[in-house]
């Protein structure tokens, strides 16, 4: 990432005329979109709309079909490959939908993996790295789990471990693919709160979510993917409406209000 110095105030994420397709399906076309530091975006759409595909493209893990895409001023997918990949990993973090553990490993080891982009080729994890990893574990309520074998964790605990690994990575842009999978309600709230706290501290989050109510409550901006390549982006208050949600999910949805929060239930 040394080849092109980014502009001082380049947005964390910028897409211009972006087109993404997968298997002949149009995820989005002509997407013009910016994510600035401090913003928190939800991506909503029905199953198969291409939310995860778009997120992986934004992370530089797959190439776009057309258009320009950049993270902190560095053009993707080039900047996320080869020699630039490690520098890119210090800027953007990506939470995958699936966690796999083919080999035995402890919880602490798994969190420390997130420190990789901060370590030189011959470095070993320092006491400071372990402190950061421990703090991340505390944040996701896995404080006493450091020595536990990963393969013995429950689905929700494993998901929170993946979140802790991402926190340990300390990126500025968090790309979250269904961060609330497997989590019980209290942990769903806790995880959304810890990510939105990161956004208020100057990071940015882009989260694929399934509950418009959670999106409206925790994210200030929302991107809708309608599944035919069309999209709609804007402030959550304006974008998440009963009309839009009904169109988005292809099922009539009703808006309920309680204590200032909006929730959507099947009508």
């Amino acid at each position, binding site marked *: 990432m040394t080849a092109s110095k980014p502009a001082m105030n380049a947005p964390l994420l910028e897409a211009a005329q972006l087109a993404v397709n997968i298997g002949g399906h149009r995820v989005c076309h002509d997407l013009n979109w910016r994510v600035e530091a401090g913003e928190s975006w939800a991506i909503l759409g029905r199953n198969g709309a291409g939310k995860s595909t778009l997120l992986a493209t934004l992370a530089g893990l797959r190439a776009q079909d057309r258009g320009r895409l950049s993270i902190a001023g560095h053009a993707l997918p080039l900047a*996320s490959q080869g020699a630039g*990949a490690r520098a*890119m990993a210090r800027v953007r973090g990506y939470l995958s939908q699936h966690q796999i553990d083919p080999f035995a490993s402890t919880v602490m*080891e798994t969190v420390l993996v997130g420190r*990789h982009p901060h370590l030189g080729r011959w470095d070993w994890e320092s006491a400071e790295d372990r402190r950061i990893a421990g703090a991340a574990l505390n944040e996701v309520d896995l404080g006493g789990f450091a020595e536990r074998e990963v393969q013995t964790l429950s689905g929700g605990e494993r998901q929170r471990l993946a979140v802790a690994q991402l926190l340990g990575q300390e990126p500025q842009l968090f790309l979250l693919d269904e961060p609330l999978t497997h989590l019980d309600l209290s942990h769903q709230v806790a995880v959304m709160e810890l990510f939105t706290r990161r956004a208020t501290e100057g990071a940015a989050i882009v989260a694929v979510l399934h509950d418009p109510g959670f999106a409206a409550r925790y994210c200030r901006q929302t991107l809708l993917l309608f599944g035919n390549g069309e999209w709609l982006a804007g402030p959550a208050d304006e974008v998440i409406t009963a009309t839009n949600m009904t169109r988005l999910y292809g099922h009539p949805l009703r808006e309920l209000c309680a204590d200032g929060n909006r929730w959507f239930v099947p009508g």
Partner: protein
Amino acid sequence: MPTRRRALLVLAVLVGLALLSLLVALAAGSLPVSAGDVLCALSGEKGGLAVDVIRGLRLPRALAAFACGGLLALAGALMQVLLRNPLADPYVLGISGGAAVGALSAMLAGLTLALMNLAAFAGALAAMLLVFGLAHGDSSWTRSRLLLTGVIVAAGCGAVVALILSISPDDGLRGMLFWLMGDLGQAISPWPALVVLALGLLVTLPFARELNLLARGDTLAQALGVSVGSVKHGIYLVASMLTAVAVTTAGSIGFIGLVVPHLVRLAMIRLGWGNDQRLLLPASALAGGSLLVLADTLARTVIAPQQLPVGVLTALLGVPVFLFLLGRQPNDRQ
């Protein structure tokens, strides 16, 4: 994961054990030798028959055994990460099959030992390029496709080997069987294998942390800054070359490549150090080398003067040891 100091300590102990195994190999045999003879042979002083036997026969053979064991264990550890499968071994992708076709064809044609080694190496390279080319296809390089291609190529080589065995004259069969089971008696010089082992460690160790990430999945590794495509191609090429050199030196010795990385990993997990390739790779190489030196020493002494193919012994000893350790491992999933 271990701290760097602990990892170095473990490696130092393993180096000590490796030297010890080499001393045992030099001292043991049908011709009894004294400790003085061994020292004399190593220091380069002139001596009697015993010194000549050690310097001319036992030392090169023990070094070849160490190098082959190290090569196979290192290649096995790399393959297990590449295929993200603890059951992978250096031969799973058909390298040894290709080498066997080359070596046995050369034996059938009555070529010299040096030409036979050349043919084995050419066969291994051909299998490696064939699998690489076929699995690569339209540039999508998935694990299952690589594994399937390798298994099919290995099966094809197996058929050719069976064909050669069935048409070859009876007096050549014994040599072919020894080659197939792995036998250090045919090693010409230990140096190529030792040099390749050192090179293999030198090129893989700087990437050991990347391999740790790769073992946790391509997506995670790429998202954390590993350039997955080139690292995977690199591991495939390095592991294949290591295997090709080992097989060329001593035939397809089984079991070391599958079991040694496993034993080391089991030990590391029991110590709470997990699956850290920074320790696993060099520790596997040292342990694999030492183990093969001891196994080969047994192979040439158990029913001396007759010699056993060392591949038979590695399996006979390795199977019960491995099953014992596996049985004692607490089943964490329950």
